[in-house]
């Protein structure tokens, strides 16, 4: 879904006469506020963010040799918090335009968590047992 950006007071900015079509995705858009996001583009960005966070946490846990279920919960909270903060405050996304908070936060959650567990388990088994 490509949506019109919103002004700070919440009003939708109307299309301008000389407005050019939104360019296709580039990496610099990852830090751009108020860009017109396509649903698929935004979903992919959130998915890959989750995978990167999963890999970072899994490798860090595995190398450090930490043990215990609370670390899994810590990952879930941190990953969700970082993802939410990123699209809410960096991209300035209104989640209602994309099906709600749950719809966005679920993107990449299962595969990201599985990736974290795999990295953690393999590194822990290889280095600390």
């Amino acid at each position: 879904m490509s949506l019109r950006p919103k002004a700070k007071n919440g009003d939708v900015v109307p299309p301008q006469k000389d407005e050019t079509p939104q360019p296709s995705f580039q990496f610099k858009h990852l830090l751009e506020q108020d860009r017109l996001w396509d649903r698929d583009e935004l979903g992919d960005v959130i998915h890959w963010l989750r995978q990167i966070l999963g890999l970072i946490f899994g490798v860090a846990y595995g190398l450090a040799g930490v043990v215990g279920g609370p670390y899994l919960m810590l990952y879930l909270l941190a990953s969700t918090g970082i993802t939410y903060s990123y699209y809410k405050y960096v991209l300035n996304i209104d989640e209602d335009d994309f099906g709600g908070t749950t719809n966005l936060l679920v993107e990449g959650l299962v595969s990201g968590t599985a990736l974290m567990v795999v990295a953690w388990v393999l590194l822990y088994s290889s280095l600390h047992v």
Partner: protein
Amino acid sequence: MAYTEGWLILLIALGSALFSEAVNWLFVYRTATYKNLRSNIDKATKKLEVMKGQPAAVVKAKGKSKKMDRVDSYLKNTNQALSATRFRTSIIVYGIMFIVFSIMNTLFDGKMVAKLPFTPFVIFRALSHRNLPGEDFTDCSMVFLYAIAGAALRPNVQKLLGFSPPRPTGQTVFGMPLPDTAKDK
């Protein structure tokens, strides 16, 4: 390095994911039928989302709600047709996966392939401790590691190769309908 079997299982899971996508590409993704269906779905999705983004008064005044229903219905039918194209190759893929899994079961049955750094929930122990001796539930069986590795790798392989299925429109990821997004402004 201990537990090298775990890394081998990860490689096998990666190979399985790549193999299944290769089979799908050979028999499904490169066919004109699939490409047309996918292109039609993308166009209809964009059209529907533009319509839904318009103010409710405009939708009503221009009689666009019936058109939206037609596009929505067309999208559902096209998605079903897309799923049907993948059905036959799914049988081939699952057949091969079953053979691979049987071979792995023969090689790794009863062996601990990794050590879990946490004790799994009770509902997962049947999988994580499958056919392993003793009561130490941090011992990890091949089945659990293979399943987790598959869950981690398959969606990412699909996305990297550009073969991920289209996202559902008009509904949440749990299949519930989205609230009406026509803006009343």
